[in-house]
């Protein structure tokens, strides 16, 4: 029984640690499925995280904080969308600039917030709570539904996006744009409109991830709070082979490795002794894992595992 409790506890921690990465990964998938490589995920998360934290701290209203956090990352992705879709700038450079921009803005905004805790209303609304019925499901209940509502919301979003891509005509049109915008255009699909909507929606999800990270998970501001989670998400998009359901797996794998790091900070029990591992090495684990995962991903050769064929390209109808 004790073992069960500790496994449960560990799974809960995984879900907590993976949720913001899951949101950002889903955001990345939305962008890349319409052919837009978005390296600004990190910046968008930081925009969402810092603006929501600022509002939560100063006004104490959780919903307002969520709204403003989302608006901030929407604004960030609107800049990216306008540049890459309408002005057809290089997506890599534009995405990088967005990350630098988001990091800078969040640092500036965060100067006054460092080390201050959030008012209690925030945790009361967004903190862990048992959802009726669902929380009674064995295993899944405690792991997912006795947590912050953001945790099940992330999974629900992943499932919804999956259903959107596979079961709806709009989802099909979306996938066609990422593969071959010329074909989509010739079929009468409005490429620009789809691209804008998906890139903005992707930015919004990054923002939600940022809000969760600062207002729910951390509860306290520190500079560059995301610690590269946006970059991990860029890698997880590849790991998930652009499949929202596999993104759940990827994000929680990240959570698990992170969790292992935390667990063994006090040393690993070894025949009655304690093996101490340098804390920095434990902190590195998620990033090393990501690199290893990417190495393995590259071994897959199936055609369906390739990125959307027009990823990274701008589309201009009259190109010759």
């Amino acid at each position, binding site marked *: 029984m004790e073992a069960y409790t500790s496994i449960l506890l560990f799974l809960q921690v995984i879900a907590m640690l993976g949720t913001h990465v899951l949101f950002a990964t889903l955001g990345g998938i939305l962008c890349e499925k319409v052919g837009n490589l978005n390296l600004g995920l990190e910046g968008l998360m930081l925009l969402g995280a810092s603006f929501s934290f600022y509002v939560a701290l100063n006004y104490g209203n959780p919903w307002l904080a969520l709204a403003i956090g989302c608006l901030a990352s929407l604004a960030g992705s609107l800049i990216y969308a306008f540049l890459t879709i309408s002005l057809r700038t290089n997506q890599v450079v534009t995405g990088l600039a967005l990350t630098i921009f988001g990091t800078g803005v969040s640092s500036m905004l965060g100067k006054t917030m460092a080390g201050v805790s959030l008012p209690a209303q925030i945790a009361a609304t967004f903190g862990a709570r048992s959802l009726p019925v669902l929380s009674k499901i064995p295993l899944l209940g405690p792991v997912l539904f006795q947590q912050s509502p953001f945790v099940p919301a992330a999974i629900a979003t992943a499932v919804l996006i999956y259903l959107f891509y596979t079961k709806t005509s709009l989802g099909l049109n979306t996938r066609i744009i990422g593969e071959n915008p010329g074909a989509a255009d*010739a*079929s*009468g699909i409005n490429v620009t409109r789809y691209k804008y909507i998906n890139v903005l929606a992707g930015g919004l999800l990054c923002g939600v991830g940022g809000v969760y990270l600062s207002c729910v998970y951390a509860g306290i501001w520190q500079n560059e709070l995301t610690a590269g989670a946006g970059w991990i998400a860029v890698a997880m998009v590849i790991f998930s082979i652009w499949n929202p359901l596999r993104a759940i797996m990827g994000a929680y794998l990240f959570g698990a490795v992170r969790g292992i790091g935390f667990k063994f900070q006090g040393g690993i029990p070894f025949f009655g002794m304690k093996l101490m591992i340098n804390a920095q090495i434990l902190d590195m684990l998620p990033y090393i894992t990501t690199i290893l995962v990417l190495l393995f991903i590259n071994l897959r050769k199936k055609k369906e595992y390739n990125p959307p064929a027009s990823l990274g390209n701008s589309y201009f*109808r009259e190109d010759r």
Partner: protein
Amino acid sequence: MTADSYADNQAYVRMEGICKAFGVVQANQNVKLEVCQGEIHAILGENGSGKSTLMNMLTGIYTPDAGQIWVGGQNVHFASPQDAIDHGIGMVHQHFKLVDVLTVKENIIAGSSTSFILKSKNISREIRETCSRFGLDVGLDLDKKIYQLSVGEKQRVEIIKMLFRGAKVLILDEPTAVLTPQETTELFTILKRMRQQNCAIIIITHKLHEVMEISDRVTILRRGEYIATVNTASTNAQALTEMMVGRAINMDIQRRPARLSAEPVMEIKGLRALGQHGVESLKGIDFTIYGGEILGVAGIAGSGQKEICEIIAGLAKASSGSVIFQGEEILGLSPIDILRKGISMSFVPEDRLGMGLVAGMDIISNVMLRSFQKKKGLFLDRAFGKKKAEDIVERFEVSTPSVRHVLKKLSGGNIQKVLLGREVDLEPALLITAYPVRGLDIGASYHVYHVLNQQKEAGVAVLFIGEDLDVLLQICDRLMVIHDGQVMGILDPGKVTKEDVGLLMLGHKAEASATVDADHEEVPAV
């Protein structure tokens, strides 16, 4: 419908005074076109004559700078492809607008489904109904992925897609460019059936015999300008060429008898190789090539042509077999060593600039890419390069402002001349050339054939990988047909028919008639 009745008949599609410029290039200048229902209308013109531009305006991809378009008696202004689709205009592009990783069904309904939730069964039924309305057999598994289909099947998907959208006007851009003779026959059957259903069909082409075979009327364009519209029945191939090119052209490729070298230049035995996904791409290729002959290679795209070229040039690895060049094994040597031995390659992939040339550099640098190997010392000898480049420009009639002109600003034909010229200039013992006339106009194509013939007469062994069977049969001394990484036969072009070659290309060895069998092992008389 008789020829004269077109004049009385109200045209279903009418374009008048169409102009379109791209920068300084005037792609269309005051062009007109009239197409009736129940008609197959060919648009004939060389590369760069503005055929595709004209059609892209009819399908809403480009907007004309000037001119009027009427469809079904209504004056229309297309702002997007959707507008054109709404007016029943559908186009099958030369480079298919299909998504490889999606299924046939998904590609067909792209952008046209009215229900939010996709209902797979209903869609399949609707597609089948559409096809049967036109008397077409779907002949395809609708759940197959596009990349699993042959080229002919992909084209059929495009046609079905257009019919599914209710196209009354079907435009096909160079539809037979990549088809085998059998697939072409099948396509023409489909088109004739659609003509019976009162569709207006426009085919863009530069192949004269196809124009003669299938079209009711022809509109000829030259350098962006309208030349004439004629009834096919009242014209002939020679007259059409003259209108298309603007002057008379001698369309005979003279095949002079081969004077073979005593020893083979290259012998390939049991060549095997692995392709991209670990599938065997070459399954035991054997052939011998002598100096002073042109050995043609025919096959559907992707049958192993690229692999053969790359292995001979040392760019790819073989898993087994041997390549003996002038009595010496060259398998495993580096590309530079192979080049030094006298093997030259002018390989023209789908995009000419993909292999062998650097688009952003000038002609001199591109010429020197190869010839600097022969010079010693640390520094480049630009003067030597310049002289070479000027030689090539003169000998091959490359039209360019100067040899310092950046390559990508030249026209396709001129780029190809530079490539071929550079390789020939190295005075190789073996010249490998793949698709050397792709995208060239007629005049330039015949120039290339002439160069190949000259090389042959100079005693060079020429390996010519081509697509146009008519040309291959005319120019080659022997024709090797490959299918799926295997040699199906090495034929005497004087003794086989195009249909037999087509069957071999498809891998139907048994069905090809008797003339084909014997020669596989035959070495031509010296």
